[in-house]
């Protein structure tokens, strides 16, 4: 090997490396030395990198590196900075009244963004991602409300919930007219058909609506009012509303009068804090049904 013959290419006058592939010969055009040095330099760099930075995987974990760099730490730091930045606006939200938030574009944009996220995280499981609710879980998009849909009322409802374990929770319970034998079966059918007629539903044949009306006035009007439009002060639903929480048909009404179901909404104030609750109230209000 030591004494290889030099072969000079005829055309270029350059020495070949002696490598030949299918008649093609490789010329030996030497690379510049600095190229080689850069290669050595990058090897040294990589060793320095291994020592300083997290690099090698181990069985449990990895080599941490002398600089103790961690992308997670950097991300956490950035997160804290962002949180501090947000806290500034949060303070403003704390101070402002709900009306002020709604009327100040910058606060409104912030509250709606925060409220949207909080809604998705906390409220959507029951009320749906679009806030349109399900049977038994109120629709927050439309403009019929049980406890009221203005900003302050919404904030109160979100804070303390409905029939929740909180001293200030909203509470209302309809008597079980059938199960507790407060009304006869016939009377229940009569009053339910009467309510159906007020709500514009097709009623069952041969039912005495006049009798139903009397029963309604004696038993129901104290909460649902004479005109059946309900009372948001006491959380009595409007029976003429386009949708019912537990289904809008005479059969559903009969079932509800017989043995009403009562849903529960948790109190959020202790879990989410005042700022988030405010943002949620503004967000829900902004969906379009707010009063």
């Amino acid at each position: 090997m030591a004494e290889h013959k030099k072969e000079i290419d005829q055309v270029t006058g350059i020495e070949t490396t002696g490598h030949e592939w299918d008649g093609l010969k490789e010329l030996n055009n030497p690379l510049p030395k600095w190229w080689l040095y850069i290669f050595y330099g990058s090897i040294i760099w990589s060793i320095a990198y291994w020592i300083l930075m997290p690099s090698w995987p181990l069985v449990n974990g990895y080599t941490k590196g002398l600089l103790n760099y961690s992308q997670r730490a950097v991300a956490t730091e950035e997160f804290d900075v962002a949180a501090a930045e947000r806290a500034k606006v949060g303070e403003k939200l704390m101070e402002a009244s709900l009306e002020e938030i709604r009327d100040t574009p910058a606060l409104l944009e912030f509250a709606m963004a925060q409220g949207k996220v909080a809604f998705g995280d906390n409220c959507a499981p029951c009320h749906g991602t679009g806030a349109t609710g399900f049977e038994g879980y109120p629709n927050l998009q439309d403009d019929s409300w049980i406890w009221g849909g203005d900003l302050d009322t919404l904030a109160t409802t979100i804070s303390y919930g409905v029939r929740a374990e909180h001293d200030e929770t909203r509470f209302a319970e309809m008597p079980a007219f059938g199960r507790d034998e407060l009304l006869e079966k016939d009377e229940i059918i009569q009053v339910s058909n009467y309510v159906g007629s007020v709500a514009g539903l097709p009623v069952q044949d041969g039912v005495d609506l006049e009798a139903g009306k009397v029963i309604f006035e004696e038993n129901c009007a104290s909460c649902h009012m004479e005109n059946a439009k309900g009372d948001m002060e006491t959380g009595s639903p409007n029976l003429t509303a386009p949708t019912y929480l537990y289904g809008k048909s005479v059969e559903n009404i009969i079932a509800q009068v017989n043995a009403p179901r009562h849903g529960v909404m948790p109190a959020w104030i202790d879990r989410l804090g005042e700022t988030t609750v405010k943002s949620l109230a503004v967000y829900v209000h902004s969906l379009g049904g707010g009063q």
Partner: protein
Amino acid sequence: MSSQVEPIDNEEDETWFASAAKIYPMEVKGRFRKIKWIILFITLGIYYFTPFIRWDRGPLLPDQAVLVDFERKRGYFFFLEIWPQEVYYLAGLLIIAAVGLFLMNAIAGRLWCGYLCPQTVWTDLFFRIEHMVEGDRRKRMALDKQPWNAQKILKKGTKHFLWLMIAWWTGGAWVLYFSDAPTLVYDLATGQAAFSAYLWIGILTFTTYSLAGHMREQVCVYMCPWPRIQAALTDEHALNVTYRYDRGEPRGRLKENKKRIAEGLPAGDCIDCNQCVHACPTGVDIRKGSQLDCIQCGLCIDACDAIMNKVGKPTGLIAYDTDVNIERRERGEKEVYRLIRPRTVIYTAVIAAIAGVMLYAQLNRSMTDLSVVHDRNPLYVLQSDGAYRNGYALRLLNKHNNEQNFTLSVEDMPEGSVLEVVGVHRTASDVVKDTAITLSVDADTTRSVRALVFSPPGVEMPGSKPMSFKLVNTETGETTIISDFFRAPGK
């Protein structure tokens, strides 16, 4: 497969790598040298001083003519202001630059390399400094050979110091494009500037000093992709710095050639003085034909012309010429130069087309913008009065540098429809009652609002009704119309 030669795979063999031979270009005077000086002054002048040009944009916006403001996500170029969503201008500029390079190449080869490339311009400047401090070619060669003494240290030291100063100034000018220049100069001088500013100055000082001072032609020969691309793009009609061998050969020393002529033998004009080689900044002998290492700077033309003048022969033995013409002259035909060829026409057309589109976009650039996104869930909501409600997320964009007022309205909705914007109260100036609302957007920013559209109660609506939002600037009357749909349960 069979080779009589042993492959030289053994490690002792040094020929795999070679030190680059140092090149000592001789200074020349002449036409191309002059052109290069003028271009150098213009380009470097633009680079170093542009950040200091002021351009009034009103009280709220920066008054720097050319500024890339990363913090506020804006780019400024004299009368232009670029928002992040408009960076496609940059794409347009890059396409024009690339095709411009192709066009230059089709006309006269590596015009870019020879005259305009930053690598060439800064290297030229550094050569000039070297020449001023250490003298011309011969003196520099002698200085490098001579042993170290005080004088050599002084000369080398001065040169490197000057190089570093220029390099440092180059890095300094770079960061000025990204912040208010006068303020940043003050901050840099008083040590108050951001760390990243110093870091970038450091990086650019290093690259300028090493690339223009030390790497020089190595950048063009080994690092830059353009020579490879250029070689593949060129054709036989492109002007190139060419040694006219039809006239120069057979070459020979002045006396020899005179003798040959006396003997009735053929003799060329090239007197083999090697001045063209000495002048070349990349160490090329152009008489070997066009080659990758030649950046086509034209300096060998100047060197050769000077010699031709001295020996009383016509200039232009080395000149911008084409392969076609050499062949034609050899055949005794007339020279031609075809500037108009398919490639020059196409390149020009592409540049004109893209420039035209960009110009059109710029002239018709809206100072306001509106984007509308319909709620996806729910698509519509039935109100207790029988109306349907649709919700839309609107984003208004104001590129003016002062607050602007707008009238937002919905069009193509039935009589009795209502538009509401969450958090915005109607004002007396809302022209069309119920379907228009006045909104203001702060200077140079965007505003997101939620709009609610109500159909008239009791009016039957189709499942999907095309409608639109109209945004009118109350002062300028500038109008933006965005089409969308109003959804209802119907078919």
